[in-house]
C-alpha cells in the first residue's frame, strides 16, 4: 500500500523529513499499523510518532489512531499547534 506521509513543523526538524511517498512492507489497514511500521526505523521515529501529544490527520482530517487507512491516503503527523 502506498501513502503520502507528511511531518509538520517540529517533527519535520526532528525526523529530517518533510514529506515522503511510503510503500508499506505489509498491508497497513489501520493508522496504528502504519505507525508501527514507520517506528521500526529507529528510536527517534518511534518516540516521535507514538508521542500522545502528536495528532494525526488522514486526508487533512484529524482522526484517531485506530482509524482505517486506504492506499493513496495522505497521512500527516502534527505536533501540538501554537498559533495566534
Amino acid at each position, binding site marked *: 500500500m502506498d501513502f503520502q506521509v507528511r511531518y509538520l513543523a517540529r517533527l519535520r526538524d526532528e525526523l529530517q523529513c518533510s514529506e515522503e511517498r511510503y510503500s508499506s512492507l505489509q498491508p497497513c489497514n489501520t493508522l496504528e499499523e502504519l505507525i508501527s511500521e514507520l517506528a521500526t526505523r529507529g528510536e527517534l521515529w518511534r518516540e516521535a510518532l507514538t508521542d500522545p501529544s502528536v495528532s494525526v490527520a488522514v486526508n487533512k482530517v484529524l482522526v484517531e489512531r485506530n482509524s482505517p487507512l486506504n492506499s493513496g491516503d495522505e497521512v500527516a503527523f502534527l505536533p501540538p*499547534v501554537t498559533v495566534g
Partner: protein
Amino acid sequence: MISVQQEDFSLSDEYRALREDAPRVGAIVTFTGLVRDRNEGAAVSSLCLEHYPGMTEQVLEDLVAQATARWDIINVRIIHRVGRLEPDDQIVFVGVNSAHRSDAFAACEFLMDALKTTAPIWKQEVADGSARWLDARNEDSERLASWEPELQRNEQLQKNEQKRQNQQQQGGES
C-alpha cells in the same frame, strides 16, 4: 472569508467588508493579534509561522460553521498570516458582524479561542539569537474548554425545543 496568507492585511478594508452587509448589521466586533517583542522573558526578534495548507482552511471553515450555527451572526472574516513576522506585525484577524453585539462578541471570542487550539499552524520563535518551536499552552486549551458548558447547554436547549415541537405535533394529531 477565510485567508491564510503571507501578506499583511488592512483593518480598514476588513471593517469596510463587514459593513457591506448593512443595514442588517447592528454590530461589528473585530480582534487583531500582534507579534509581541517578549515571550516568557526573552526578547523576540522574529517569528516564523508555518501551516498545513488545505487542512488549515478546512479547520477554519468548520469553526465558522460552528459559530454560525450557535450564534445569530451574519458574516465572518478570518485572516491568519504565515511566514516570517517581526514584533509589532499583525498576525491574525477575526471579524464578525451581527444584528446585535452580544452574538458578535461571543462568536469572535469563541473563534479566536478555538482557532488557537485547533488550526494546524505552528510558531517558531527566534529569541536571544536562537530558534525554537513554541510549546502549546495549557491556558489556550482551558479557554476553549470554557466554551463547552455553554455549547452543551445550547445543544440541550435545541433538543428541548425539538422535544417540545414533537409533543405539540403529537398533541395536535390526537
